[in-house]
């Protein structure tokens, strides 16, 4: 086969055919693996929710443990009223934009815990997490944070237990007003609200976590206070 490999037509046709072939192969791979990936993502989400109430589960047992521990999952609006919707599979960013907030009710050793979703921004990308409160709807029982691409060894440390365990026992309300929990530079302190140490060397991620907790839980305030009186 004799062909002029330097001609424009050959080059354009070659590039077009190549691109179409690659697109087909990639689309096929993506479709074929979609089911497995979805399952992994769901189990990962279950593990995050379970970590916020100190329940350890491997990816394989996440689904069983989740079904055991989580008694109820629903959405609330910004007036604290229960509304229709699937709390687990809803996209938290979209839900917050429509002023709907996922709530998970867990039963840990006979005690009721309320788990709320959080969504915010770090230095390089989105942050998200779950925070669980005791049945006084004020004292934090546990928390779990995740991130898309914070700096390993610095901002990425927020996803470790060393950071999230600092939140246990902190109060969201001070003098009956919602104050959230501040994330401060290690060694600093703030007046009139509870605070935890941030991560040294990752100021922006720490501030992002601070803002995320405040902004996200702000939508839950009515829900948290509605049955508090």
């Amino acid at each position, binding site marked *: 086969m004799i062909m002029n490999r*330097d001609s424009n037509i050959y080059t354009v046709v070659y590039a077009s055919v*190549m691109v179409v072939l690659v697109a087909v*192969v990639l689309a096929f791979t993506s479709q074929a*693996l979609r089911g497995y990936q979805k399952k992994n993502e769901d189990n990962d989400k279950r593990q995050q929710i379970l970590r916020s109430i100190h329940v350890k589960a491997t990816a394989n047992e996440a689904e069983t443990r989740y079904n055991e521990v989580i008694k109820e999952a629903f959405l609330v609006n910004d007036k604290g009223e229960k509304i229709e919707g699937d709390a687990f599979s809803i996209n938290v960013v979209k839900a917050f934009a429509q002023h709907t907030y996922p709530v998970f009710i867990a039963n840990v050793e006979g005690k009721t815990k309320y788990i709320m979703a959080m969504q915010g921004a770090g230095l390089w990308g989105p942050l998200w997490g779950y925070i669980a409160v005791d049945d006084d709807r004020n004292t934090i029982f546990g928390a779990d944070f995740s991130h898309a691409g914070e700096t390993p060894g610095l901002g990425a440390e927020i996803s470790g237990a060393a950071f999230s365990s600092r939140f246990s026992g902190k109060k969201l309300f001070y003098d009956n007003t919602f104050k959230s929990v501040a994330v401060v530079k290690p060694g600093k302190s703030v007046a009139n609200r509870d605070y935890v140490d941030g991560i040294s060397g990752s100021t922006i991620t720490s501030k992002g976590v601070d803002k995320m907790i405040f902004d996200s839980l702000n939508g839950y305030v009515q829900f948290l206070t509605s049955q508090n009186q």
Partner: protein
Amino acid sequence: MGLLSSKSKEILLGPLSKNNPVIVQMLGICSALAVTSKLEPSIVMGISVTAVVAFANVIISLLRNTIPNRIRIIVQLVVVAALVTIVSEVLKAFAYDVNKQLSVFVGLIITNCILMGRLEAFALGNGPWAAFLDGIGNGVGYAVILVIIGFFRELLGSGTLLGLRVVPQAFYDFGYVNNGLIILPPMALIVVAVIIWVHRSRNKTLQEN
């Protein structure tokens, strides 16, 4: 090794030592520093790069007589990018946790200099079998270095190997502490340097004056 001619043997085994992509050619250093704080991601990264470089080499080698010269780099990039995307999707489906740890570095295999280097220097001028061996050789050469670095960094930095505790509790009771510094990328560079030092002192031919 009876199946391989002496030339094939050299193509396959050369990159493991005398012509190692990381410690002799100094390619792929970036990812070698970034993913090696634990042993498991080092192994997965090594396997992923080996798979990508071997198949990219074969594909480019098969296409080498048809590729228009003016867009050959683009063709190589498309082939590599497609393979990396497939590897990334497979990891997401079957090794989700490791994929999370490797995060952006799977995508960055595309820019790993070893790939473009082998495609340009070898696959464009050799047949598919030789190119496959070359890819495996270079991938394994890279993986071996990553595993060595990952081994020492996880052992000294976390006291574990593949997540299992190997430094006994008694050591900690006597005041032994994990070296947090070795988890940070600069220490990986120093580990690489020590490997290069040992390697050069054993291979006189590689020493420069």
